[in-house]
């Protein structure tokens, strides 16, 4: 068997606002095990993970939470930096956020702008988003963003769409976006109009059956 060797990068965007408190531990558990699940799905197709990196973007509401609106990690190399990755995830606590919506689109933009791997003969660049609510429009408060607002965020949803379509670091072949978010503002548009998307409409993936979980992993593992 020849097998195929993959370089896999995964960026997790985790909504850590107060409304997630009842489910945040389940999301964290899933994030910590996701790369093993994906590894197994790829292996089942004789696709072997050569290098694996994961990063985390914890987000709340940039209009409410000040400096706590975002906490981001660099990519952790797994398995070498498993402990550091686990420690970062375990430190996520659900708090703040005020009322919905939250800053999910900004978190997604940060993830898209990640320093994706360009090595390896085959690649997967995977973004996974967990949130239980809708998103602030990127157009909100145009020209007067708060001081904690992250850099290099598109000014409109169309620009974010262009970023997904054309981000130089993410090739069409490699990128996958997995949404565990409700059928709510922006997420539904992304589901309907963006390429390479799987959406499980729900509150942060709750109620996902094993069958559907396997389907999602298969869509990442397969070419199509």
């Amino acid at each position, binding site marked *: 068997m020849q097998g195929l060797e993959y370089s896999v990068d995964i960026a997790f965007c985790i909504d850590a606002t107060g409304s997630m408190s009842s489910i945040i531990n389940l999301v964290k558990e899933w994030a910590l095990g996701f790369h093993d699940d994906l590894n197994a799905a790829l292996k089942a197709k*004789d696709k072997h993970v050569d290098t694996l990196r994961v990063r985390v973007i914890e987000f709340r509401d940039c209009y409410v939470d000040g400096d706590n609106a975002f906490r981001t990690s660099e990519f952790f190399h797994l398995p070498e930096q498993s402990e550091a990755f686990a420690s970062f995830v375990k430190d996520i606590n659900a708090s703040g956020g005020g009322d919905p919506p939250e800053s999910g689109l900004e978190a997604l933009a940060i993830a898209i702008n990640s320093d994706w791997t360009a090595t390896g003969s085959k690649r997967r660049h995977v973004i996974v988003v967990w949130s239980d609510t809708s998103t602030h429009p990127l157009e909100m408060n145009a020209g007067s963003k708060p001081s904690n607002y992250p850099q290099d965020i598109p000014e409109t949803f169309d620009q974010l769409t262009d970023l997904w379509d054309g981000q130089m670091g993410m090739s069409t072949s*490699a990128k996958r976006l997995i949404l565990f978010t409700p059928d709510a503002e922006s997420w539904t548009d992304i589901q309907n109009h963006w390429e390479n998307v799987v959406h499980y409409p729900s509150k942060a993936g709750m109620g996902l059956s094993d069958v*559907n979980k396997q389907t999602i992993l298969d869509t990442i593992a397969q070419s*199509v």
Partner: protein
Amino acid sequence: MPIQRPFLTVDIAKRPDRGEDAPPLVLVGTGCQLLAVFDGLGGAGSQLLIDAEGVAESGAYRASRLASREVKRFFCCNGERTSLSATQDLAARLRERLNRAFDQELARFKRDTSPLKGSLIKRLPTTMAIVHLQHQAEQRHLCRVFWVGDSRAYLLTPHEGLQQLTIDDLREPGDAWENLFNDSPLSNVVSEKPGFTVNSSELVIDEPVVVLVATDGCFGYVGSPPQFELLLLEALEVSSTMEEWQARLQEGVSGITGDDATLAAVLLGWNDDFLKCRAAFRNRCEVLMNEQMLITPDSDQDHLWGALDARREWWERYKPTYEAYMPPREPEQ
């Protein structure tokens, strides 16, 4: 020794009886033959579809078989009409038939068995590659090719080797070498969603020739495109009958593939004498084996197919003939 049946098929399922490729389709009519393969897409179509009897199968499994059934009915029902129709008209009619059939099929299943949505999710996705051969004159055939996705049709001749007749429908199109590594999503698949296209082309071919269709499980796990031809010819070289060639190919593809794999081939010419066919390809096989031996094993990666640069150089030499019959690419929109 005359060949009883000048066809062979390869049918490999990674999970026995659960293969998402449909069994290869071979039809023989008066003055015509048809070969077809169908690759149900296990990623996009891995959701289970449950019918009224409670039978659950993946969308990929069902789609490949549904497409196979419809292609069989289409060409069987249109016998003489097929001969008289323009290839592009046939492609358009086939697309309409598949569209209708996939739509009707979906109604058989319980709705909303899966809540998953998005562009990567299709309920009944499959590729297909079909070759319809129509005898025209002594030792001459009209070869019509229909395809959707990345399943391929090829000619295999003693002098020109393997020649691809289809163009992979990929979002990031490349040549056969690039497509081995790019792992691009498909831009066109047969599914319940409207908007797919049945590509078509036609050419006149002269005997002797082997015509084949294959899914990516056959050609997608080699180190370079010429090594797929070598796999075909090495299996031929050590066989004494068509059945033996089929068995060797089944074994050879099983040994390298990480996917379901199907292939169908027909041998045209050589007075239906398998040993004559084998003898005709002997020189070509030796040429390829010598090329293979020239590839120094890559000590860093210990790659069984040979060093990457050497394979790429081999491909560059091989490419012009390999692509000689490929239809022109559509300009990008």
